[in-house]
Each structure stands twice: as structure tokens, then as C-alpha cells.
């Protein structure tokens, strides 16, 4: 599904280059459940951001579903991202001024989906995650786990091909973490490609493949 070839990304510091991604190569097939592991500072988040086209790289090639991303203008890149990728953050990043229902609905609004269709889609997903009763609450009224659920629901509502999750259970306790990972497993079984970055060994175990990052490149495992 996506292919990264000899990706380099660096920042300049006092005349020297500090590499965030150092000759990174990666192939991901459709339907995979990939876990990216590694210590702090190894470049997990950076890699995820590059894959999500939220961040760019300095050297190398990136093909997504056949498209040469490195050749596209940022507007086109954003478009592809919006159509195909759902992003889940460690800090949830919900819109504090909107209810659960409105938070989940927002991506559909940006896609200009019709009102009746929106209602149906949101209702479905609320149902699926068993949070129908909470649809009129605001984020600050929910627990961490519930907020992350909303975050996942929001990422899923556009039926993306690829889900990227950056430390999705970082702020949750073990019970909540398990629940979230279960959901990821189910989604993957339904055919959604998932790439997660995580510290946690137990989380990584849910995946089909693990890669280890160290200092910006893939460690040979």
C-alpha cells in the first residue's frame, strides 16, 4: 500500500545536521497491522507524521497507493490524506467546544456530506462503540478512555483505508488500553490497515508485524 525508500529527514543545529530519519526504508501492505516500536527520540512520531503527509522529508521517495507523494504539491497531498487516512493522537485532541456527536460529525462536514447521511453514519459509529448515551456530553465530561474512543470514532467515520495511531494508549490505564487495542484488532480484521507507534510491548503484540526504530532508522531485528 505504501512504500518509503531511503527517506532522510534532518534539522540543522549549529552548522551540523541532526537526523530525525536516517535512510529509512519501509513497505506496508494492505491489511497489515504494523507496530512501530523504539525508545524515546527514535523517530516514531516523526515517521508517522511523514507517512500521514503532515510532515515532509528532505530526501527519498514515498509512494502511497501508487502515487509518488514526493512529487506532489502540498495541496494535493492534503487531499490524499483527507480521503484515505485517519489519525489518532496520544492526547486525543478533541474539539473542546463541541459535543461527542459534533466532534465525530466534523470530518463529514468538511467532506460536505449531506445531513441525513451524516446522521446515519454518526449513529452507526456511536452504536458500535457503545457511546450512544454520551453523545451530548463534552470532552471534559468524559474519562480518558472514553475520549480516546471518541478520537477513534472520529478517525473512522470517513472510512479510511489507513489508520495511523501515535501512542494511542499512552494516557490510559491498562484496562482502557486493552479495550482500545481490542477495537484496533477488530478493525484490522475488517480490512483496515493500521500502523501504530507504541512503547508498550503488550500493545505491539496485537499487531501482525513489529519494526524497531533506533536513531531514525529501522534496526535489523
Amino acid at each position, binding site marked *: 500500500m505504501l512504500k518509503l525508500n531511503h527517506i532522510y529527514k534532518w534539522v540543522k543545529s549549529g552548522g551540523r545536521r541532526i537526523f530525525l530519519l536516517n535512510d529509512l526504508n519501509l513497505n506496508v501492505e494492505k491489511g497489515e497491522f504494523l507496530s512501530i516500536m523504539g525508545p524515546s527520540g527514535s523517530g516514531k512520531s516523526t515517521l508517522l507524521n511523514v507517512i500521514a503527509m503532515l510532515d515532509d522529508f528532505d530526501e527519498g521517495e514515498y509512494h502511497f497507493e501508487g502515487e509518488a507523494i514526493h512529487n506532489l504539491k502540498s495541496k494535493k497531498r*492534503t487531499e490524499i490524506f483527507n480521503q484515505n487516512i485517519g489519525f489518532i493522537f496520544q492526547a486525543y485532541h478533541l474539539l473542546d467546544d463541541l459535543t461527542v456527536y459534533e466532534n465525530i460529525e466534523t470530518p463529514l462536514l468538511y467532506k460536505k456530506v449531506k445531513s441525513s447521511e451524516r446522521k446515519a453514519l454518526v449513529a452507526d459509529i456511536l452504536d458500535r462503540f457503545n457511546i450512544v448515551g454520551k453523545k451530548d456530553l463534552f470532552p471534559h465530561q468524559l474519562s480518558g478512555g472514553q475520549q480516546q474512543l471518541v478520537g477513534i470514532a472520529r478517525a473512522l467515520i*470517513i472510512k479510511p483505508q489507513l489508520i495511523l495511531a501515535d501512542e494511542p494508549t499512552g494516557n490510559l490505564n491498562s484496562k482502557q488500553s486493552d479495550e482500545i487495542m481490542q477495537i484496533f484488532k477488530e478493525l484490522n480484521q475488517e480490512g483496515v490497515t493500521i500502523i501504530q507507534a507504541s512503547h508498550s510491548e503488550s500493545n505491539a503484540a496485537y499487531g501482525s508485524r513489529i519494526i524497531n526504530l533506533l536513531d531514525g532508522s529501522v534496526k535489523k531485528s
Partner: protein
Amino acid sequence: MIRNYLKTGWRNIIKNKGTFSINIIGLALGIASCIMIMLYVVNELSYDKFNVKADQIVRVVFKANIKNEAIKEAVVMAPVAQTLKNDLPEIIDATRLAKSYNNRLEYNGSYYGQSSLGYVDPNFFNVFTLPIILGNQNTRLDKLNSVVISESLAKSIFGNTDPIGRTITVTNRHEQLNVSGVMKDIPQNSHFHFDFLVSTLGYPQAKNTSWLESDFFTYLVLRKGTEISGVEAKLPAINKKYMGPQMLDAIGMSYEEFQKENSLGLFLQPLTDIHLHSNFSDATTLEQGGDIKYVYIFSAVALFMLVIACINFMNLATASASKRSKEVGIRKVLGSNKKQLIYQFLAESFISTLLATFLAIALFSIALPFFNQLAGKAIDFSSLLQPVYILSLIGLILIITFLAGSYPAFYLSSFNPLNALKSKFSGGGKSSGIRGGLVVFQFVISAGLILATLVVQEQMNYIQNKDIGYEKDQLLVIRNTYLLGNNEDNFLDKIKNDPRVENVTHSAFAPAGESDNEVGGIFLNGEFQRRMFFYNVDENYIPTMGMELLQGRNFSEEFGDENDKIIINKKAAEILGIGQDAIGKTFQRDTNEGLLDITIIGMIKNFNFKSLHQEIEPLILKKNPYGGMIIRSKTADMSGIIENLNEDWNRYNPKEALNYSVLDDSFKHTYLKERKMGTILTLFAMLTIIVACLGLFGLVTFTAEQRFKEIGIRKVLGSSAAQIVTLLSKDFLKLVGISFLIAFPLSYYLMNKWLQDFAYRTDIHWWLYLLAAGITIGIAFLTIGIKSYKAASVNPIKSLKIE
């Protein structure tokens, strides 16, 4: 989609109720003040323009410079109107107006005291647009003894009955007048107001052929398109032709000879200039007008207020928007493109601005009646509803929306979502520099206005407390006692013996308020020196008024008539070049019987008998008691005396009303214009500082939130709350300090210019600056301090938890 934006925007407002209200109120205050002042200025500029022929009407005025004495009179000689109409083809009509004071009207046994009526030529209504609502449109004042009355007067005298054809008596002149028409009340923005216009056909002075006596306000209608200067250039020749021969007869000098060392002439003043650009002697001014200077000042103030309020609004909106960078990041990740974000923020900005404008209009309508009272106007709310104002308001809303919304809309929306999510900016560097500059600007204006207000108050105090050469309190002025005829002496004696009265003088020459006037020529050995003011007094005048005799003696009963003796003021001694040796010197003054020798017996300290705007002129006192009385009461409460005077007067002469005034009040009234300006200035200084402080409050809030984490860390490291407050306040107080450096020199320059208008003025003391600075810093510090203290008291754990 819009609903989503509205929901977000609305809930954002609810979350930040305090900041939002401050913002809206600040902007509303600015807009409301601007509207108020704008309508005031428009009103001031609109005087007399309701006349259809306004652009063609000019007033003939008289300006002269005689022996270095500048004379400016708005009235001219009786024959001028008809003469100019006959001799100059550019003049298609000419009409005259004479004002008569202190008349009493009687109808059907009831008396109506009227202070003024106007004698006008029959064609007055052809020149001025004064619609007649009852009576024949055409005849009006063509008949002898006809009068046109105003709607309000008609109502008060006749109620609902038809006034046409009825007879009103002007008792003090024994005139019986027939009402030939009722006119609409003259609008507020006219330079004259009368309820009673009588035809000049029955007015003897109207037939006067003298070119040396001025009594009439004269208005000309020029042919459309005529240049005023062209007509004005023809006037000197007319002067020479008609004034010359009469001048030769009167003073023995020909017109050309006179013009060699002096100048006099007739000039033309456009009708529309009268209200704001008139500078004529008080005796020849119909009504105290405005001053174009104040129009400029107020326009500037209005503009400043609006600018400050808008700047505030933009500043605060921008500051609170940068808190939403995270939301921008999220929305971008969720699929928003830049255009949608721009739209969202501009929509929010629009709603806030709209709300503020509605609030402003509400504030305006509530404050309007008070403002009208303060400024002596009759501005109507509906005048705001004219298309030009509505369009301007809409334009203003759009501009503010754009300016306030553009930062979040354009700047924020272009951020990389990742950076936005990590809240990696807060508008430091460049934008905080701009914000700082805006704070300085606001405080420059606030500090400047405070200083200006203080200076105006100082000057008003100075005027009130200055030694003006006489004691102005507890003086009662009674005019026209000659109307009591044979009973005048009884009336006077009764007062003299009243135990509540300290002293009485038989004279109607008062240094403030309405007064008799006399001007005469002074000659030395038959040679004309200059004209001087004369006061006709008795031996009680100087003691009653509390004046100080510097040399020589006062008039005295011992010496009988003394009509060849005079007392002069110090200024007269200087002008006549006799300085310290005035006593015993002899001059001549002109009378109907030729030149009369007069000898100086005394010299008094200069006293201000004109407004403090003017230098003290030379003055001559001569013994010639008549006309009125000035009473010095032993106590400040003069109501008892006034009551008795009224009773006595009405016993002797019920046909006239007792004309009395309190000198101190008249004195204060002279400076009414400045007083009003002072009050309005104070009001707007306060408003400006409120708005500036609101802005400061908002900025401090923003900064405190920005530095939330930093404050938490510092507290953990050991900083006290006081040190945090100092940290946060330092920068702002520095800005306020800078604004003083700019404001004070500017203010000094402007206030000095204003003070130049007064011949007698206070200095701008250094401690006024201190006071203004103190007030400004005090208010600013209060504002900053409250918010900083709150921020400094937050538990550091709270600020360090988030990350």
C-alpha cells in the same frame, strides 16, 4: 457547516464570558461615542443651512481699526440694506433684523414676559425659510403693526383658538400688534431664534438715514453664482459715497483723511459661517455661537475614540484567537482546508462586531437625552437613520470584522497542523511588538486627554478665583429703573435703607452680563485721541463694587454735580501717557454741545469689565447716575431681597417685569462655552481611559495565560506572588511610561494654543503633569495588578500538569 461554526463560536464566547464582554463593551463604547460626537459635529456644521437660499445669503458686518482699537460689529447702519440693493446689481434682495430686549406682552389681561422680539423688514420671509403654518402666505408683515408669532408662543397665549387677526400689546412700548401669521418654531440650528417678529414698518429706527449709527443685522441675497469677494470690493466706494459727507459733518474730517490713519469698512460674511466663525462684539451678537475650533477638537476626539476601541477589539480578538491554534490544528487534520478556516474566523469576528454595534446603538439612544442637555442641542435619534450613516455603519462593521478577524483567519490558518497542535506559537516577537505599540498609542491619547482636562479645569478655576479688580459675589443688578418714572427715587430709597443691603449704587453699568454701554471720543487740546469706554456711575459705585482707588479721590456728594470730573482706570492712564501723574490732568470728551473739558480726580485699579479673553481696556467713570441699580447684599442668600423688590416693582409698574440678575451668575455664563467644552472633554477623557484600560486588562489576561507555564515553574523555583506580579507588570508599565513621553509635549503644545485665547490665563504647572501621570499610572497599575495577582496566585501544579 455554518451551524458547526456558530456552535463553536458561541460556546467559545460562553466559555470566555468575561473577556468577551470586555471586548464587546469596549468596542460598543467607542462606536457609541463616535456616533454621538459625529452627530454633534454635523449639527454644528448644519447651522442655517435649512434656508433654501443659504448659499446666496451674506451678512453685512462692520470692521474698523480706530486709533489702534479694533472694532468688530455684526450690526450695520439702517440705510445699508436698501442702498446696497439699489446700487449693486449683484444683490437681488436685502432685509434687516433688529433685536429688542426685555419686552412684556399682554393679551386678554394676561402678561407674558418675553425677553426678546425681532423687528424685521417685510421681505424677511423671502430671504429666510421660515414656513408659515397659519395665516395668509403672502401678506405676513406688509401691514403696519403686524406681527408673526411662533407656533409655541401661539399655543401658550392662545391655546387652541385661532390667533390670526387678534391683537397683542407690547406694554413697555405701548404697541398694539395684529397677528398676521403663525410660523413654525425656528429650528435649533439657526443662528437666531425669535418667537415674535414685528414688521419694521412701525419701527422708527428703521427709517434712520444716518450712516454713523449701527442698529440692524443686515442680510443680502446675492445672485446665484456671484463671488462674494467681488461684491465686497465694491463696498469701500459705497462707504465713501454715503458715509463721507455725514462723517465730515460730525467730526470735521473727510473720509479719505480718516482712512489715512485708521480703517473702517463694511464687509460680507456668508450666512453659513456665522455660527462657527463669528468673532464680533458681544453687544452685537444675537446668540452665543459655537467655535470651529471645538468642532475640530471634537472630531479628532471622536476619531481617536473609535480608533482606540477598534484597536482594542482587534488586539483582544487576536490574542484570544491565538489560544485556538490547537483547534486550528485539529480541524486541519480533520479535513478542513484553509478557506474554510478563514471563513470560520471571519464569521465569528462578524458576529462579535455586529453585537457590539447593536449595543452601541442602544447605548447611544439611552445617552442621547443627557448629551442633548449637556451640549444644549436637540439631536434626534432618527437623524442616525439616514442612509449615509447606515451605510457608514455597515462599512465600519465590515472593516472591523476584517481587521479583527484577519489574524486568526489568515495567519493561524496557514500553520502546519503539527505545529499548531503543539501550540508552538503564541504570537511572540513581531506581533507582540505591534501590540505593545498599540498600547502606547492608546495611553498617549488617554494621558493627553487627562492632562487637557486638568488644564481646562485649572483655567476655569483660575477664571473663577482670579482677582478681577472688584468683588463679584453677592451683587444684584437691576436694570431699567427709569421705567418706574416718578417712583424711581422711592424705589431706590427703600433699598438703601434695607438692613439686608450693604450698599447700593445708582448705575446700570455692570462688568458682567447685560449692561448699558457707552463709548465716546477723548480729545486732548481739541485733538482726537481715541475712543474709550465710559461708565455712568455715582459716588457709591466704587465702594459697592469693591473696587480699589489707587490715587486721588472718589466722587462725592460734597462736590455736587461733578459732571466735569472723571475717574480713570490704570490702563487709561497708560494709554493717555500720563502714568503716575494722572491726577489733575484735563482732557475733553465729545457731547451733543461740543467738546467738554474733563479733569481727572482719581485712578482706580484695573478691573475686568469684559471677558477674560480680552485684555483690559481703558475705562472712564463719570458721575451720571441713571438707568439701574447694583445692590450689594450682606448675605449670600438674596432671595428675600429679590422677593421684596419684585413686590415693590409690580406695585409701581405692573406693565413691565422686574429685570434683575445675579452678577456672579452672569459672570459664569460668559464662559459657558468653555465650561461646556470642559465637561464634555472630561467625559470623553474618562471614556477613553476606560476603553484603554479594558484593552490593557484583556492584554494582561492574555499574557498571563500565555506565560501560565512559566509562572508555574517560577513559583516552584521559589518566586513569591509579588515577584510574579512585578514580572508581569514591568513590561506594561514601561509602555505606559513611554506613552507619557509622547503625550506630554504634544499636550503641552495644544493646551498652550488653547490658552492663548485668554488674555488672562493660568500657567501649565509642572505638577499638573505629575497629577496626570499619577492618575494614568494608577489606573493602569490597578488594571494590570488585579489580573497579575490572580495569575500569580494559581497553584503551580495546575500549570505544570498539562503536557
